[in-house]
């Protein structure tokens, strides 16, 4: 019995599981917010043209 209990590791209470879930949710929300923020800041700093493909300048090869 003792060995079985040891195999289970730390047993969390329901309250602790809820607490962990709330923390995970908060981290997910913060990360989502940061993704949106960095996207918007990129557009603001580089302008709408940030996503447009630009033509590379022609390269002259000197033989």
């Amino acid at each position: 019995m003792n060995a079985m209990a040891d195999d289970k590791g730390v047993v969390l209470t329901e309250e602790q599981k809820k607490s962990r879930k709330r923390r995970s949710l908060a981290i997910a929300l913060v990360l989502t917010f940061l993704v949106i923020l960095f996207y918007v800041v990129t557009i603001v700093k580089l302008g709408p043209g940030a996503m447009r493909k630009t033509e590379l300048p022609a390269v002259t090869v000197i033989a």
Partner: protein
Amino acid sequence: MSLISEERINRAESLPGFAGVEDYWALLKPRVMSLVVFTALVGIVRAPGDIHPVIGFVALLCIAVGAGAAGALNMWWDADIDARMDRTRTRPIPAGRVEPGEAMVFGLLLSGASVLMLGLLVGVLAGALLAFTIFFYAVIYSMWLKRATPQNIVIGGAAGALPPVIGWAAVTGTVALEPLLLFALIFIWTPPHFWALALLKKRDYERAGIPMLPNVAGDDETRKQILLYSLVLAPFGVAPFVLGMTGWLYGAVSLVLGVLFLVFAWQVYRKREGDAAERASKHLFAFSVLYLFLLFAVLLGEGMVR
């Protein structure tokens, strides 16, 4: 259920590291953060030139998170003191809900992230000033001055006074006389504000072994210092108007509030015994918060309509 399982569950319940989101929020000292955001916003609004609203928001967010990170580092370092004071014993670390190491990592991560974001997305000077503010509050004030000298909050006040300068730097990329005046205003305001509280919480500070001015130099000397600082603060409050940086509204409000501040400080100086003395300290502490809030609110209003 066996004895072992029950023991495991009890151990799990008392295990640190199972804090709620609200505990991590409390580590950021949200009340201090709100004052920081407000004064930084004044710096942003009053600075000449334009800033894109999104970049302005990012600047404010970084300053807020940086201030919160400094608060978390302060709580990590001061957990032993906090456990001995009534005012702070329910904070997440002394209450056992957050492990000290977690708070330290939390504070360091947020410090690095906020400084990097501000430096890269807004401006290098603003980022450097935020880094200096966090360093000053966490290392110079919390780790060194707080336990070493009764001048702790005088010098440490510099950290709380920097946000309007960071806000200004976020817009202009430079520092000018006006944000430095705002810095000086908060810097000089800090001692009478905190010493009024220290007079009320003297026993708490004594128990924690913090050398606040009333504990080291006595109540009478503290009252004298409060009055002296107030005498310097009142004219400093009017200085932005005298130097032509603000409108008449700020001039009038700062003059009236400065006189009232002196009246409250004089009451603290004069009433030295019993309930009357305690009431005078409470009134000055409460009014000092209102004083700074109203001055910055008028500065913000004038900055937005000009």
